[in-house]
């Protein structure tokens, strides 16, 4: 079988060595078992061990290997390498400071996630057994709890690019609604108060880039819409 050769154009920057970022052209021969973009990147590292990116589970559940692939955010481990136009252009997720190569500083992203108090609040005495929740009530959490915090969505969002310190961003707001929608959570008012300002929630202009790029097929825009509804209903 003839070798499959794939050409890349990859954003490279090592602050320890490079004065400024540059795009590296590199070609790599793949083995038949190399199916995903991540497989190709691991193969590429056999050729150039300085190419840096995060990776772990290689099955789309840990959220490590998010990057900008031919102009669109996605996970390398869930992207078929043969589906991509060559040269495959890889850049770090947009809008966050680059640490090295495809590795970005996610501090701001997690700060926003933490800012929505991503934990259940229930001040009643702890019961001996589980708190009851009907299957229908539980179903409300589907499409919300599956988020893997890969940051594909927030870093595809112009509102987040412009105000990463003030706008919570789609990932954080999806998490906010995950707790608002949980019948076991009692902090609804405080959670809405926490989002009631011109930026934190309302900078979302429903551009829907987040929906377009989410590798788990989640819909942050819809969740944000529901939070806005709750705000309105609370006001009247």
């Amino acid at each position: 079988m003839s070798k499959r050769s794939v050409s890349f154009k990859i954003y490279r920057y090592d602050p320890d060595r490079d004065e400024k970022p540059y795009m590296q052209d590199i070609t790599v021969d793949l083995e038949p078992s190399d199916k995903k973009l991540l497989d190709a990147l691991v193969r590429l590292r056999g050729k150039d061990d300085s190419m840096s990116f995060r990776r772990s589970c290689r099955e789309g559940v840990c959220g490590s290997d998010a990057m900008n692939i031919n102009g669109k955010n996605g996970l390398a481990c869930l992207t078929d390498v043969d589906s991509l136009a060559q040269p495959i252009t890889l850049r770090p997720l947009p809008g966050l400071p680059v640490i090295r190569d495809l590795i970005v500083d996610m501090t701001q992203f997690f700060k926003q996630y933490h800012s929505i108090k991503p934990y259940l609040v229930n001040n009643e005495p702890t019961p001996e057994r589980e708190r009851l929740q009907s299957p229908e009530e539980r179903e409300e959490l589907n499409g919300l709890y599956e988020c893997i915090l890969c940051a594909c969505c927030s870093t595809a969002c112009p509102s987040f690019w412009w105000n990463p310190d003030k706008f919570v961003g789609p990932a954080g707001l999806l998490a906010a609604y995950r707790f608002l929608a949980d019948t076991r959570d009692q902090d609804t008012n405080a959670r809405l108060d926490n989002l009631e300002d011109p930026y934190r929630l309302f900078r979302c202009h429903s551009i829907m880039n987040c929906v377009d790029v989410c590798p788990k097929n989640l819909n942050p825009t819809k969740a944000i819409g529901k939070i806005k509804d709750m705000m309105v209903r609370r006001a009247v």
Partner: protein
Amino acid sequence: MNVAKRTFDAVIVGAGGAGLRAALQLSEAGMKTAVLSKVFPTRSHTVAAQGGVAASLGNSTEDNWHWHMYDTVKGSDWLGDQDAIEFMCKKANEVVIELEHYGMPFDRTDNGKIYQRPFGGHSMNYGQAPVMRSCAAADRTGHAMLHALYQRNVRANTQFFVEWMALDLIRNENGDVLGVTAMELETGEVTIFHTKATIFATGGAGRIYHSSTNAFINTGDGLGMAARAGVPLEDMEFWQFHPTGVAGAGVLITEGVRGEGGILRNASGERFMERYAPNLKDLASRDIVSRAMTTEINEGRGCGPDKDHVLLDITHLAPENIMKRLPGIREISIQFAGVDPIKAPIPVVPTCHYQMGGIPTNYKGQVVVPKDGNPNTPIVGFYAAGECACASVHGANRLGTNSLLDLLVFGKSAGETVVEDFQSGNLSLKPLPADAADASLARLARLENQTGGESVFDVGLEMRRTMQKHAGVFRFDDLLKEGVSKMAEVAERAKRTEIADKSKVWNIARMEALELDNLIEVARATIVSAEARKESRGAHVRDDAPDTAENPNGRDDENWLKHTLWYSEGNRLDYKPVNLKPMSDDVKAIALAKRTY
């Protein structure tokens, strides 16, 4: 190199399920704690667990912890310690209910309770029929659990050191543990974490095998650190090959698929498990199912052009049930097998999944080693929990859903023990030896200055291929012996790894070289321990120890009902007795018997 020093009451290495559960105990008790993790906590491999966590809640079928204990002892092929198993099964309801209170989005029964599904090897009334014991959040239980635990830690203000790799364990001349050295990946700087207590929760090392469900990060860092520091590793010959990894890709397909009614079929469409396990069939224990599949393939009844896999069939299940209970599996199957399981069966092969052995501990999470005639003497200041530890609850074969339970119960228990020891004044900050960081600095300097060396990629590949060939689902004396000498050669090569990238910043090449050091310790432990154990038990099955009247299933209790202890120095083996006595006087020991399902 300058080495910074930081002082904490405790350091926890690893922020998967076990590390996060332990961290909660320490944070809520007000201990000054550092949690180190190579990855952001929610990227730890607990996230990939799918099918559920075991607890005898009895929400859908009658159940109790005695039945769970019996299943676990039997599943372990009697190599599990019955005191630890009793402890785990008794504690299961408590730790699972706690998770629900933390906000974990479990699926629900019609009356609002936690949804439970059947799972392999779990039975009611001591083996009579499948029981619904696996508490599940669709087929994303690990993800839901890890996020809930992380979120609870956010509430508890736990202090994380994200993307820090621990390098070596620090011990003084008495052998007491004083903390670890660790490298910050972003800067490459080394810091000493000087502590009163050190908890390892570093997970497994499934990456020693070529075909593995494990993540890239599962490199046995805790085991490598422990082994280099003179701590023995227990029962490392026992590796679980999960029956259903996606053929070619290795990605896990949960046993919950069979719990929901999935059936394994060979090339002629036969439900072959009926021949191997007439009672529990496809829901027999994992070692049994993996061997049955391998036998089918070896005897020419495999599927596909190369007859190299079997099929996992759920096409007879209602599509809406698949969408509701197994949505993640459907995604994985489409992504990695190119098959929509609603329409066609999934090609699967047994794939390395879980390490039953590990750092020897007791049920309190204390690391225990032979000393002064006592085989289980705690090391002062050292604790471990989760897959990196061996309590031992899984013995020679783990039951599905007992791993998430293990990390909850023993993560909490290790945390509680540390808090107790801390509050009672049993822990103190002992003076740091002058050479505390020398071993780590020497490893880094060696790597920095190596010339004419070996590529990390090549040596790692040779290790994985060697382990796959020489210590797989079925084991052969000649292959094991050959494997021991081959791994010794690979280990020599690993001492001369060379990296081209010398950057200080986020240097993956350096990280992978350091990880390889850890994997090599685990691979050596595995092959040496496996070669030495001349019986078949649980996941360790040798062709020269077949099923006989004298030794049912090839198990030789007279000579081999004992735990292996492997020491890195000199590749030395030692053994210690299995605890066949439960913790409580009023609990009857599960008597030795032949394992059938």
